């Protein structure tokens, strides 16, 4: 049964937010990507992406470099070593939770209706 005290399975709330997890997952496979590509790949709005990147930068998970390419401003984003490690660990935790959920059988609530077709096998 899943132990809630198992700290190894406590999810990182900063990364677990879907928008931030999408950004970090896209960045995990590249050295860097610019703002436009991240917007395309994650389908986040400009404002949302900007706000998520600011939070990730504040936490030291991404590095943001602003420069001019030709005459256009360009924002390049890459994961820091800590960010790379955190997102890999986060996905690992999610995979382990999923695997665990397949093996855990939830206790039967006596008040709940019995399933059609007979008894439910498993232990509490």
């Amino acid at each position, binding site marked *: 049964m899943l132990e809630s005290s198992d700290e190894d399975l406590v999810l990182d709330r900063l990364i677990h937010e879907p928008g931030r997890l999408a950004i970090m997952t896209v960045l995990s496979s590249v050295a860097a990507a610019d703002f436009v590509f991240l917007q*395309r790949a994650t389908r986040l709005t400009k404002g949302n992406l900007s706000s998520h990147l600011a939070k990730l930068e504040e936490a030291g998970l991404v590095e943001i470099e602003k420069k001019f390419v030709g005459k256009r401003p360009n924002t390049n984003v890459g994961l820091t070593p800590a960010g790379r490690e955190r997102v890999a660990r986060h996905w690992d935790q999610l995979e382990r939770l999923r695997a665990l959920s397949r093996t855990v059988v939830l206790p039967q609530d006596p008040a709940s209706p019995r399933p059609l077709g007979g008894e439910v096998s498993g232990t509490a």
Partner: protein
Amino acid sequence: MERAHLESAAATYSYLRGLLSIPVGVLFILAGLSNLEWGPLRQVWVFGAAVLAAGVAYLLITRYYTHHYGRVTPSTRAQVKAVIATIVCALVVTGGLQADWSLDLPVNGTAIAFALVMAANYAIPVGLRAHHMVICGALLVAGLLPLWGDVGPDYKINVGLMLMGVATIAAGIFDHGALKRTFGAPKDLNPGNSNAGI
């Protein structure tokens, strides 16, 4: 949220920038025509000018993609893989050309080698899409048809080059369509100032 989908976004983007294949395909066709001394292409400078024009077109298309779809810096590992893949592809196609030149086979080794290289080039990093299967399959069948026996190596290689060009352009057009379906149409996003207040 699909982890694999997000992790492969950069690789998918690199491979689906199909408009970049058009100048490359055009050069393959012109190289074949030039070698066969067709029309104005019998003049060497005409092909030289075409190479220059293709280079300019390539740069402009790259700029278009960067502006509308963004810029990705691949990881060192991905860059090493790309270099190795390019070398292997070049060796296989050279092998096909060499086979056409020195062996009197009833098939077109150039087209066959390119069809196999093209299929592997998509299948390994991003997976084959339906249009890749149709285009690579058609090129492979064209190369395997037993009608290349009596045409001579020069004609065989250069028609093979032209078939390579047609396949490259066709794949590029369909790849660009797939890119738009995956990442959205160019006008879906107004890139403008990409700093967006970070």
